[in-house]
């Protein structure tokens, strides 16, 4: 039975399990490649911390499974010691206003005596009684101290008529910490893999280790790297470096650099022997998708399998073709911070899909053509008394300013360090008869140099936030889980949205958060933000598309048509806008 079938079943029996995937050695102590000679209690436990032959330690992984205690668990080694439900602070996207929040999972597990069978491969050779010696977690953490960054799997599913772990939604996270044992429990904290972009985990570019061998003046065009030989091992043949607050382009031969001084708006300056020669990361009108891939894979070290290239390229081709990045990272910076800036500059959401184990991207945009949104109603979907509406008046704007073309890339991103600005304004909404005043959003982007890109950012932001958006939260039964996808749109119909007459009105929202909460398997909570773009948008129609009056409704939704001089069509509907 599939997970979708179980979610829709009356009397479904939710089960949450966790898998702790730890490193282990694939060898047998003292056999073959392992030269360890220890016996009995001195033998290892096939972990790195207990290894007696570290040179030949051969790493593989082993998963330890834990579950909530309940009847009808599968008959395999599955420690039923999860206390309550795993608590999850879900991933939150921002609707194209930054990186958002990383998902955090905490799981509390009871400690218990354990006989070591299935854990210690040499349990039968020990002289002590493992069941009466220590506790499971006390022994486990002593033998496995290198748990940070290893994988915590969280299994969400049901005890169906036929049990299979393949029918579970398996989400993977990086272990951050394991606390305890305290009060006969331990607590595992794990975050989604984008935590690897945090400054504490990774920076981009990586810190260079070369220094100036001797002083150089602001006029010098050559310099020598130190220590000797580092040029060939650590530096590319050409590129950009920074010394102090000066960006310098260079070509290299062995340790000798030929310099072009004072690049990226910085001033040539004197530098001293011993000053660090930092390799810079630069982009010159690179598509933001390319830059993100570089930051995540090269910078943060994410496996390339985590990047769904085809999906990313499709999103690029549809909405991000003009999202071109130009800029420099002169010193190592937090990748998380840079991605957050890119998200705001080019209006996309990025998040870790723990189930698909992929980093997802969604550009902030009107709905693509031909898409029918799932409709959730107060009759059959929204759980009683669960829908809450929060009007976000602070997120409504009548004017957007985008400051771009940074002057000196060594300086901060203040307005006076940008040479250009593009704006979009809606004076009608700012008029005394409507919102009665301006609400201005100022965006500074060190990554934009193109006027059209700046204009696009201003226009899209204004189109999205011209009217006060609603932030809503509501609960659904798991039967509707498939209708909700991060950063995608949904339609809601509820008495809490009414038209002028008081009749229910269907509104469109973008999902920002899906929270399994403390009742995973029973119900889940959705947070979403108004997703209506002011105006009517279109794609270029293919040849042979009929005129508006003869076009199908699907064609009218998908493609642009030239309207009458008064901005309307013959049927009275509004003309289209270019965004």
């Amino acid at each position, binding site marked *: 039975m599939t997970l979708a079938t179980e979610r*829709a079943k*009356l*009397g*479904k*029996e*939710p089960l949450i399990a966790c898998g702790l995937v730890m490193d282990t050695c694939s060898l047998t102590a003292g056999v073959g490649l392992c030269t360890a000679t220890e016996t009995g209690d001195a033998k290892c436990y096939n972990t790195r911390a207990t290894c007696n032959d570290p040179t030949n330690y051969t790493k593989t992984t082993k998963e330890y499974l834990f579950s*909530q205690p*309940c*009847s*009808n*668990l*599968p*008959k*395999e*080694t*599955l*420690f*039923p010691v999860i206390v309550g439900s795993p608590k999850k602070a879900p991933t939150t996207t921002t609707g194209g206003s930054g990186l958002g929040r990383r998902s955090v999972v905490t799981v509390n597990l009871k400690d218990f005596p354990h*006989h070591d*069978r*299935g854990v210690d491969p040499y349990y039968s050779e020990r002289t002590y009684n493992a*069941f009466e010696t220590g506790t499971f977690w006390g022994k486990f953490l002593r033998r496995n101290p290198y748990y940070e960054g290893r994988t915590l799997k969280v299994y969400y599913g049901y*005890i169906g008529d036929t049990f299979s772990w393949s029918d579970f939604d398996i989400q993977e996270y990086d272990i951050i910490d394991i606390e305890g044992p305290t009060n006969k429990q331990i607590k595992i904290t794990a975050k989604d893999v984008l935590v690897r972009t945090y400054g504490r985990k990774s920076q981009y570019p990586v810190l260079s280790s070369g220094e100036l061998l001797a002083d150089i003046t602001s006029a010098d065009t050559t310099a020598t790297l130190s220590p000797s030989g580092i040029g060939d091992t650590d530096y590319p043949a050409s590129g950009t470096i920074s010394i102090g607050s000066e960006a310098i382009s260079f070509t290299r031969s062995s340790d000798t650099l030929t310099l072009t001084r004072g690049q990226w708006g910085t001033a040539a300056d004197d530098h001293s022997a011993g000053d660090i020669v930092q390799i810079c990361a630069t982009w010159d009108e690179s598509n933001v998708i390319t830059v993100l891939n570089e930051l995540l894979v090269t910078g943060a070290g994410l496996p390339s399998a985590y990047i769904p290239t085809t999906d990313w390229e499709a999103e690029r081709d549809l909405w991000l073709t003009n999202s071109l990045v130009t800029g420099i990272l002169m010193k190592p910076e937090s990748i998380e911070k840079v991605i957050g800036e890119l998200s705001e500059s080019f209006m996309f959401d990025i998040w870790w899909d723990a189930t698909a184990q992929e980093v997802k991207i969604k550009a902030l945009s009107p709905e693509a053509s031909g898409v029918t949104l799932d409709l959730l*109603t*107060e*009759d*059959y*979907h*929204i*759980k*009683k*008394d*669960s*829908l809450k509406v929060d009007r976000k008046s602070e997120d409504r704007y009548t004017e957007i300013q985008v400051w771009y073309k940074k002057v000196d890339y060594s300086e901060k991103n203040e307005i006076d360090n940008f040479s250009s600005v593009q704006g979009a304004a809606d004076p009608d909404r700012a008029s005394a008869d409507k919102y009665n005043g301006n609400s201005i959003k100022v965006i500074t982007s060190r990554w934009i140099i193109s006027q059209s890109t700046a204009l696009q950012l201003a226009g899209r932001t204004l189109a999205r936030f011209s009217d006060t958006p609603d932030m809503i939260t509501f609960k659904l*039964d*798991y*039967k509707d889980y498939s209708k909700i996808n991060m950063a995608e749109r949904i339609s809601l119909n*509820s*008495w809490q949205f009414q038209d002028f007459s008081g009749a229910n009105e269907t509104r469109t929202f973008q999902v920002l958060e899906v929270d399994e909460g403390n*009742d995973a*398997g*029973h*119900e889940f909570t959705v947070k979403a933000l108004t997703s209506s773009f002011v105006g009517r948008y279109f794609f270029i129609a293919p040849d042979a598309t009929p005129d508006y009056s003869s076009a199908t409704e699907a064609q009218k939704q998908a493609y642009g048509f030239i309207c009458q001089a008064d901005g309307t069509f013959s049927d009275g509907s509004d003309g289209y806008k270019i965004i």
Partner: protein
Amino acid sequence: MTIIIESASSGNGKIGYKNLFTTTGVTVTASTEDTGYEKENAYDWLGYDFWKPTATGDSWIRASFASAQTANYAAIWGHDLADHASSIKPQYSTNAGSTWNDCASVVAPSDNSTIFFSWDDTSAADYRILVTNPTTIAAIAGAQIGEALELPYGMAVGFAPSALSPMVDLKTAVSEKGVFIGGSKVREGIEGSLTVDLLEPAWVRSNWSPFIDHAQTPKPFVFVWDDVNYSTEAVLGWVENKIPTPNYSSELYMKVSLRFKGTL
């Protein structure tokens, strides 16, 4: 749950807690054991680990002694025999395993609940649980064989067979408009209690007190309240609090009681 009786049982209720697999002097062997599913898992009283043989067909786990031991019950719990269409029976041997006699008839259970076999006392130095896995291999968390503690009386008025209403945490979902849109549950096993009065003080001291020692280790036990008339209601139980001290309900007799949680 299944109960197999091969004797003129009293139907008074039985508690299976003694286990030859853990008795001093025993040598336990198994036909085979899969990696991570060692034979010890079948008699360590833990419900989260399992003995599982490596091959289909007949497999066994055997308790051997230097001298004859008495047994009149066997219990199997925490198994998935029904899922694998497997069958099971207890056997004994009086010739060091050259030939085996059935203690009770073979069972091919229809569900994975506790199985309780009951028979007249046998005396043998070798006992085993024989499992037949036709195509796929079942796992067993608990195997017990030994002498059952038989209560002198049946359950008194007011006794609630715990198997009749297992504990369940129900959650229902209602839409904003009041439509029933779903429901889920978490099965949380069973809970039960029993009280037996008018017991001979000597019986309490020689039979109930040893059981208290076992249950308060704490270790689980199998309880069948009437193996004659209600053969589908045996449960695996354990105590989570101190068992009440037996008390004198009259000048001559004592009363014992027990509250437990468990699984079917």
